[in-house]
């Protein structure tokens, strides 16, 4: 029903679907034409697999070899060539902008997730510590980050910090995302730690463990297990939020999509494809986390 409705609606505005244009933006064949660099004679042709090695000898005895695809071979042995004559071409499979964008989005999200998790863990621990300075510092950080829009933070990181500290746009983007995620992760970790019954800490301390030992061996492993579902949500959000880095001209999936649209005008198709690619990333992450959850559930 929905699909039929959409079809009718697009028919009405005379939109021509061109799905066939999409695949080339994932991978494409890059053909490079090779021409003779100087007047020369073809000294020898040697086939090796799918390519032919051409050996040229110039008038002054200069020698040079080239490799071209067999079916593109334009010269024969002992043929006299002038500078600029085509010898043939080579073709290489290359990733198109959508794949490059997907890859950038993937590693930017991964890097900022890991850094965000570390920041969040440290801040979360400060948040529950007895030290009032650490506690109020972490509260200030969390409030500051949670209370301002990520888009604005990105601009501040890129235009202000990026200029003042001379950091690259990628670094600015990743740190803005990581610091943003860290604030939310910190609250999740704090909730996790506080959800562990007090008796666990007491039991660990009564066995002579220090606070640090009790945290690392007893409290955090249990808290981690409980916080996995909200952490998963947070990191899925982070993948989606990473689309905002396109505003500081990082070529992530969203920006690649926009670039492709400017050259194809296949607006509808590309946005659907971009959405699907985000969905792909987030559902893989979901699956991985639910697998970890099942692994950890053995002690339940």
């Amino acid at each position: 029903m929905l699909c039929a409705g959409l079809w009718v609606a697009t028919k009405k505005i005379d939109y021509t679907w061109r799905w066939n244009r999409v695949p080339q933006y994932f991978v494409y064949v890059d053909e490079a034409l090779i021409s003779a660099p100087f007047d020369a004679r073809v000294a020898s042709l040697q086939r090796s697999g799918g390519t032919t090695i051409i050996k040229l000898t110039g008038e002054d005895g200069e020698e040079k070899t080239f490799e071209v695809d067999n079916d593109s071979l334009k010269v024969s042995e002992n043929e006299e060539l002038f500078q600029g004559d085509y010898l043939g071409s080579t073709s290489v499979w290359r990733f198109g902008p959508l794949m490059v964008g997907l890859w950038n989005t993937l590693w930017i999200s991964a890097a900022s997730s890991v850094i965000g998790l570390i920041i969040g863990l440290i801040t979360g621990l400060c948040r529950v510590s007895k030290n009032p300075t650490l506690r109020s510092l972490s509260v200030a950080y969390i409030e500051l980050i949670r209370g301002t829009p990520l888009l604005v933070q990105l601009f501040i990181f890129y235009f202000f910090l990026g200029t003042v500290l001379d950091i690259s746009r990628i670094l600015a983007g990743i740190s803005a995302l990581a610091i943003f995620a860290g604030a939310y992760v910190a609250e999740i970790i704090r909730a996790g730690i506080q959800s562990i019954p007090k008796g666990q800490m007491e039991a660990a301390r009564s066995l002579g463990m220090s606070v640090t030992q009790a945290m690392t061996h007893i409290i955090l492993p249990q808290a981690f297990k409980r916080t996995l579902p909200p952490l998963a949500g947070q990191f899925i959000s982070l993948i989606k939020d990473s689309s905002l880095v396109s505003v500081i001209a990082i070529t992530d999936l969203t920006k690649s999509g926009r670039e492709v649209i400017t050259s194809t005008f296949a607006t509808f198709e590309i946005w659907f494809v971009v959405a699907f690619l985000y969905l792909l990333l987030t559902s893989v992450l979901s699956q991985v986390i639910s697998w970890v959850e099942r692994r950890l559930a053995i002690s339940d």
Partner: protein
Amino acid sequence: MIKTVDLKKSFVGRGQTVYAVDGVSAHIEPGEVVVIIGPSGSGKSTFLRCLNGLETFTSGHIMIDGVDLASKKTDLNLVRREVGMVFQQFNLFPHKTVLENIILAQQVVRKRTRDEAEKKARQLLKKVGIAEKENEYPIRLSGGQQQRVAIARALAMDPKIMLFDEPTSALDPEMVGEVLEVMKQLALEGMTMVVVTHEMGFAREVADRVLFMDQGKLVEEGTPEHFFTAPREERAKAFLKQVL
């Protein structure tokens, strides 16, 4: 072994200061089994928790094996490894198997090797009678079995003193016996034990001395025969009338 001098612990709530432990002076000899009884809210658990530093006390002194807990120089972690504690709610580590529960602190605190710790753990599990459960997670054990694991876990640290905070109060009645049996065994082996309990039978049979606490004060102390048959204090008489 344990000596408390005028121990006080106060809580401040709603502008009032409440003394949970109000001037308790007690002396516990090595190898002695002391049972603390009293109505709920009498401060017996708080007193026990002060003995291994889980509660900080307001004033007074606690000497454990000659070390003063009130002194700022005392490293509580060093004291705690000599003082085992068993809790009402067992407090086993749910993410670790029975064996790992007993091994962890031995490795982390006592710096024993894995082999040593495992050997010790198996030996203790055998002693408390659940050797076959070593690879189970705590959640799959009955309350009585969990409490016996908790006792084994505390014993694995080779403590000089064992504290029991109502170890049978969270158990189904039919499981109380198995835990008390382990504790009796421990008493016979000469462990210094301080037990907060409502099990009068245990107090009568095993205790060398009974302390009766009410409203944070140590009201009466004496041998079980004396305490259960001829208590001096009115408060103790009234309490015994209720529970016996």
